[in-house]
Structures are given as structure tokens and as C-alpha cells.
């Protein structure tokens, strides 16, 4: 849709597409459908050759005399889901129930700060990682029914988005820690670990259940966005 607006104003566009059914209907001037899971459009992480091959195919459409042009990128077959497995599909290991959530967060945080090569992409909540112990304690209290506010919540971010951003910061911190330790692991395997073998996975379910028990549809919806 954006491609059509830009093209109509005199720009030449090349679009990557994740949903072929949509591209067929929307008739973008030039599009390349990529057979990747959501979250990947140019190519898999650190796969420079694949990313470049997608871009080369995309730019090859520039020589077409007329449109719409829709090409399919042929990718190596990978055993991966189109979308991540969810909490309802992962069983929690008994051992995970013995882990202290706050201690687990602190260990992840300490390793993250020590990793020189990490991208500390944990800025959505704007909570300094040194305050993650307090953040984890507060989140755990909130999930168990004590809805007092977090002292470090930025004034311009409302409580529900703040909870979402804080959870996302922790989710990414955990996932990057795991990716660093086991770089060969697939996204699906990492997700099963996160949801089934960590105290964070148990916390996510507790927080979801607490939010979904609310009578307020907005709060219920927030629970659906935390885990399902």
C-alpha cells in the first residue's frame, strides 16, 4: 500500500513481501515474496549470502518494463515454524519451578553487561539494566496481584505499555543470552527453552493470567499480548 502511494508520486519502489496472498491482491508495482517466518524479510540472521540474494532479486525487478511484478524468492528449506510456538504449546519443566525469578534476571543482566559483543537492545522500557532486579521484583509482585506502580516508570508511558515494554526488554535479554550460549539453536528451540525451562516463562504465564482475569477489556488484551 505504501509502495503504491510512493510510486504514484513519482518514486520507483521495490517491496519485499511476507504474505503472498496479500501481495497478489494489493498489486504492488514490484514485489518479491520471501518464504521466511514473520520477523524476517531480507534473510536470516548473519546469513549475508541469503540477504544479498534477496536484495539482488528485488532490485532485478527494476528492469521490468511494466507491472505489477511479483517474483518468488527460492530459499533453502529450513525446519522452522511460520510463527513462534506459544506458551500453551510448551510444558514447564519441574526444574524451572525451583529457580528464583529475580536471581535469574540478575544473572542474565550481569552476563549481558559483560558481553562486549552484545547489542544491549533493551531500551523500550527505558529502565537502566542496573535496576532490573527492582524491575523483576516489581513485575513479580504485580503479577501476583499487588498493582502498586513501579517507581522508575517514565512519566510519559502509561502503565500497560510500560509492562509490555519491560517484559519485552527482559524477553530479548533472555533470548540474546541463550543465543550467545547456543548460537546454533533455532528460534523454535530457543522459544521452548524460554517458555519451559526458565522462571521467566513461569512469570509470563502468571502475569498473563492476572491480566486476563481483569474486567477491563484493555487489560485483558494486554494479557493476550504477554503470553498465550
Amino acid at each position, binding site marked *: 500500500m505504501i509502495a503504491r502511494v510512493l*510510486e504514484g508520486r513519482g518514486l520507483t519502489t521495490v517491496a*519485499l513481501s511476507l504474505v503472498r*496472498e496479500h501481495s497478489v491482491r494489493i*498489486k504492488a508495482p514490484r514485489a518479491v515474496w520471501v518464504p521466511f517466518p514473520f*520477523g524476517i524479510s531480507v534473510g536470516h*540472521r548473519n546469513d549475508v549470502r541469503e540477504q544479498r540474494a534477496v*536484495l539482488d532479486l528485488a532490485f532485478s525487478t527494476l528492469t521490468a518494463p511494466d507491472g505489477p511484478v511479483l517474483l518468488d524468492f527460492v530459499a533453502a528449506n529450513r525446519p522452522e515454524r511460520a510463527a513462534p510456538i506459544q506458551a500453551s504449546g510448551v510444558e514447564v519443566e519441574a526444574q524451572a519451578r525451583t529457580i528464583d525469578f529475580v536471581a535469574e534476571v540478575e544473572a542474565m543482566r550481569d552476563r549481558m553487561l559483560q558481553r562486549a559483543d552484545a547489542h544491549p537492545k533493551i531500551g523500550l522500557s527505558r529502565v537502566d539494566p542496573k535496576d532490573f532486579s527492582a524491575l523483576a521484583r516489581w513485575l513479580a509482585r504485580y503479577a501476583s496481584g499487588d498493582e502498586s506502580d513501579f517507581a522508575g516508570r517514565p512519566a510519559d508511558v502509561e502503565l500497560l505499555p510500560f509492562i509490555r515494554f519491560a517484559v519485552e526488554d527482559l524477553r530479548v535479554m533472555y*533470548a540474546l543470552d541463550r543465543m550467545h550460549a547456543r548460537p546454533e539453536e533455532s528460534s523454535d528451540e530457543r522459544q521452548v527453552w524460554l517458555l519451559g525451562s526458565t522462571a521467566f516463562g513461569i512469570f509470563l504465564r502468571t502475569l498473563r493470567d492476572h491480566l486476563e482475569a481483569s474486567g477491563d477489556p484493555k487489560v485483558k488484551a494486554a494479557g493476550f*499480548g504477554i503470553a498465550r
Partner: protein
Amino acid sequence: MPSLDRLPEAARAGILSLAIEEVTSTPFHRPAKPLAQSRVAIVTTAGVHLPGDKPFVAGDPTYRMIPSATDGADLLQSHTSLGFDRTGIMADPNVVYPIDRLREMVAEGVIGELAPRFYSFMGAQRDVAPIKNVMAPEVAAHLLEDGVDVVLLTPT
């Protein structure tokens, strides 16, 4: 994505229920010059932005400008969803925002040059009218001001 038939039914129905414009024709602007002489910009719907920018919220029709000199590692992504794994993007932003690949293509002479300003929108929009009627035309004007020839659009 590996075609909709591999998604669970509820997710597939959700994706197919997204707003899609029914159209009969396609605007088509042939490039005036070869790619090796063209100025290229990224416009993404991955919801990435500078750390100091206001994060996107669901359905947010606004856009963020990203100077093309910004490294991918310096971007945040506030489009978060249980529908995709963001970890790959956090580890390698080129997964949806191919800034390193485009820089390599400029260095090789495949692409002429990069435009100074790139743009980012939030994905998974239900009401596309504000973007179609207001935001995307604004972005088009900025891109034309910058002398952009070719725009690469990337989703997440």
C-alpha cells in the same frame, strides 16, 4: 513467510483479516537511470527507530525518520508481537533493515548511493487510511526532496 498454510488456523485467519485495499490498476514509474547511478532509500514497516524516538504503539499510523548514517545496532524495535521472534533482528538488524547490505552494494558500485533519510512505520495496521492519505504522502514528499530514485520497502 512459508505460506499461510503452515500457520495455525487462528493466526492464518487473523492475517487474512488485515485491511487490504482492493485495486484494479498499479501505478508504475519506470526508473529513470540504472541502479548503479540511483539514490536508494529504505522504508520499513518493522517499527524500528532511534532510541530517543517515541516508541510505536499498536495501530500507530505515524512514522519515524532514521538518518541513513545510523548503524542498525543503534536502532530499537518497538513493534513487538508474539507473532514473530525479534531476537534475530536484535542480533542482526539486516534481517529486516538491510543497512549493511546496502552499504556493501554502494561500495561495490551496484547501487549509486544511499539517500540521507530513511523512514520507518509500524506494521500490522488495521486501519490503513491515515497512512495512505496522510503519512505515506508526507514520506513521499521527503523522499522526493532528497532526490531519491528507488525505494526498498521491507516488512517484518
